[in-house]
């Protein structure tokens, strides 16, 4: 029975690995900033899934704590990234407007 579980979850982990690579390519190629932030969020969720699968496969129950920490941190990362990029845009816009007023 454990071999069946191992085959199933190993296959799932391989597919999740390929999906992680695909999200990474999206993060690099994505023409807009929002594409990259979306890709980072998706990568976080995929990693949470793989941590939970690994915690079952290795029989260690305490690894799910790490998954909880990771969800919190990825959410915090999205909050901060969006705030920083919006602030940079507003700064550049204000500088451009001040430059136009001076000129």
């Amino acid at each position: 029975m454990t071999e069946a579980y191992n085959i199933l979850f190993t296959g799932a982990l391989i597919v999740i690995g390929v999906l992680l690579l695909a999200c990474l390519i999206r993060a690099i190629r994505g023409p807009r900033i929002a594409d990259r932030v979306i890709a980072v969020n998706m990568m976080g969720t995929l990693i949470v899934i793989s941590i939970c699968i690994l915690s079952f496969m290795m029989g260690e129950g305490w690894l799910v704590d790490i998954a909880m920490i990771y969800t919190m941190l990825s959410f915090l990362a999205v909050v901060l990234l969006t705030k920083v990029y919006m602030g940079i845009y507003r700064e550049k816009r204000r500088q451009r407007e001040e430059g136009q007023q001076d000129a």
Partner: protein
Amino acid sequence: MLDIIRFVISAALTLAGLFCLLSGVVGVYKFRYALSRVHAAALLDTVGILLMLLGVIVATGFTVASLKMLVVIAFLWLTSPVAGHLIGRLEVTINDELSRDADVLDQDYVEQEKVPETTTTPADDTQEEAQ
């Protein structure tokens, strides 16, 4: 017998979850604009993780670890819509040619986002708190 039923249920849930993850990532590649990709990415955060983690919970049985996995699912469901909202807000603020990529229904809100109000001073904040 029970083991086989448990394995079949777990395998069915895991494969369904893998299908949802796959369709989410394919959707992120197929859609052409960032705001549409948020729809596809939300598929992972909600259905994908639910089905996959339910598969793992059925496999582990009723332990503290499976309760923690339920807490992980609940936490992700609480935070994922806010993340999507923030990403949408970011895209609307940064895009200079929004009307070309999407239908803008409320241009005033877009202008408000792009140019911050310079009238919020500390005095205004304390007035809000007093009210």
